[in-house]
């Protein structure tokens, strides 16, 4: 471990950069249960949080790991928990609770091969649909996929900001490739970052009241003077359960709408590389991006006009942007470390003459640039 002097540029693992980004964004509480390949997030949080006046708690299991973080968040402290596939399954119920109770929290899932305990140390992107649909009921989700160590730092900050602004759980969907690799990372200090904090200026002493034309309530933190109720049941302005169908319908719609309405106010983010003249597009995200970048270099040298479309915010998906871009493409190849999950979304939105293709891998090894180039070549024969 390098000395504790926090130098601005450091060689860090993606998992370590996640913790540094979280602390820069204001995280002062972490609770969780260690699991490969996310364990370094717990380890570094245990080291760093006490240095900045925060608290780290190792809980007895994955469910308690998220539950304690939710409790800390309700008390006004920016909180995070991290896990991998098997633990992500266990956290789903409390993710739904955070959604309906409108408790800000960042949940990191460093994806590994599954199902079940699978291949603990091997990469995968098999949880992307679980991130979207894992908890039950109609709910919105914000899931963000970083593709490098620096991106992990920056996107962790953004995950906290979105969570605070919209009082919603945000899933930082990392994978073993990004979590375990080391790259140079600039630790941009808090004072140079745009930081959002939740609004705690409660309206009429009602925790779930919100202003005209607004979508997010302003709850006072627990312990700051107001007594109020929090429940996973649909509730009224005071936070008490209700069976009133009108209130339930309005509440569910508002929770859905608050993410939809603000999709273009900071939630959606995507990246394009060399798409201007491309007739072959590749959709990828997370660690897979790096193999695609390598493949584009090689394929361009061979004369193919290939470009990349990378959703950084995976959910909600940049549908409109991809539909517009696909109009110029004859082929659109989805590359992901699973059996075809984002592929389903892409197939659902891309109509017309663009042929949607797929490259996937589920054996615990990474997709290589050569495999992608071969696929590009074969499609042109």
């Amino acid at each position, binding site marked *: 471990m390098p000395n504790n002097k926090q130098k601005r540029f450091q060689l860090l693992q993606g998992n370590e950069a996640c913790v540094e980004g979280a602390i820069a964004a204001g995280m002062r509480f972490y609770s969780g249960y260690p699991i490969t390949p996310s364990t370094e997030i717990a380890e570094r949080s245990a080291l760093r949080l006490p240095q900045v006046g925060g608290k780290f708690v190792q809980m007895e299991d994955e469910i308690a790991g998220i539950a304690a973080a939710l409790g800390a968040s309700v008390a006004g402290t920016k909180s995070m928990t991290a896990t991998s596939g098997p633990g992500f399954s266990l956290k789903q119920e409390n993710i739904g609770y955070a959604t309906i109770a409108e408790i800000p929290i960042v949940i990191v899932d460093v994806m590994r091969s599954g199902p079940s305990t699978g291949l603990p140390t091997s990469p995968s992107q098999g949880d992307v649909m679980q991130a979207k649909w894992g908890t039950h009921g109609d709910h919105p989700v914000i899931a963000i996929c970083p593709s490098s160590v620096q991106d992990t730092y920056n996107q962790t900050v953004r995950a906290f900001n979105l969570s605070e602004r919209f009082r919603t759980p945000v899933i930082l969907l990392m994978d073993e490739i990004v979590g375990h690799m080391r*790259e140079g990372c600039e630790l941009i200090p808090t004072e140079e970052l745009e930081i959002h904090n939740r609004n705690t200026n409660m309206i009429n002493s009602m925790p779930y009241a919100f202003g005209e034309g607004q979508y997010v309530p302003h709850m006072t933190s627990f312990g700051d003077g107001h007594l109020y109720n929090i429940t996973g049941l649909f509730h009224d302005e005071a936070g008490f359960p209700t069976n009133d169908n009108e209130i339930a319908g309005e509440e569910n719609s508002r929770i859905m709408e608050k993410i939809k309405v603000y999709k273009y106010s900071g939630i959606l983010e995507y990246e394009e590389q060399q798409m201007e003249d491309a007739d072959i597009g590749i959709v990828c995200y997370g660690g897979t991006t790096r193999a695609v970048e390598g493949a584009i270099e090689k394929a361009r040298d061979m004369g193919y006009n290939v470009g990349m479309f990378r959703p950084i915010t995976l959910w909600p998906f940049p549908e409109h942007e991809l539909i517009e871009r696909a109009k110029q493409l004859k082929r659109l190849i989805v590359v992901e470390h699973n059996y075809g999950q984002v592929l389903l979304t892409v197939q659902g939105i891309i109509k017309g003459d663009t042929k949607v293709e797929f490259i996937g891998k589920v054996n615990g090894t990474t997709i290589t640039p050569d495999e992608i180039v071969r696929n590009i070549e074969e499609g042109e024969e």
Partner: protein
Amino acid sequence: MAKEQLRFTGSGGQGVILGTIIIAEAAFLDGKQVAQSQSYGPEARGGMCKAETIIDDKKITYTKVELPSLLLSLTQVSFDKYVKKIAPDTVIVVDEEINVPERLYAKHEVLKLPIIKSANEVIKNKMAANIISVGAVNEALQIASVKSLEEAVVNHIPKGTEEMNKKAMHLGAQLVKDARK
């Protein structure tokens, strides 16, 4: 400098991952772009272990080694596995106990070095084998300045072992110089 793709292989517990982290950090301190990664099984010790560092002047896209510019192996079993996938000009650095097929000497620079023996007999600590390897690899490819390599070594070792590990690092470089004489 050209892009370097280093692959270190051995047995879990020998410190091959740490070796690639130290090389990566040294190059990083010299202002290079680096990407370091590893693959290993769930065993705490003894499983086959592969660790990689890529170093370049420009942005690194794919972060895994495709064909290594240098292969380091500290065990026969890991050498036999990973020697199957090397480039025509891959530099091979192995412990002297490892059996290297004759045919490889024709095309490749093969540096068979007394890494483990030197750790045991000169440094008197078998854990120093990875730091000797780091010194050797850096000398073989001239990746990072000696000053940065020293700094990177010191950043990643237990307090109180600085002099021993610096000695191991310099010894590794000397082994390569001697082998090339």
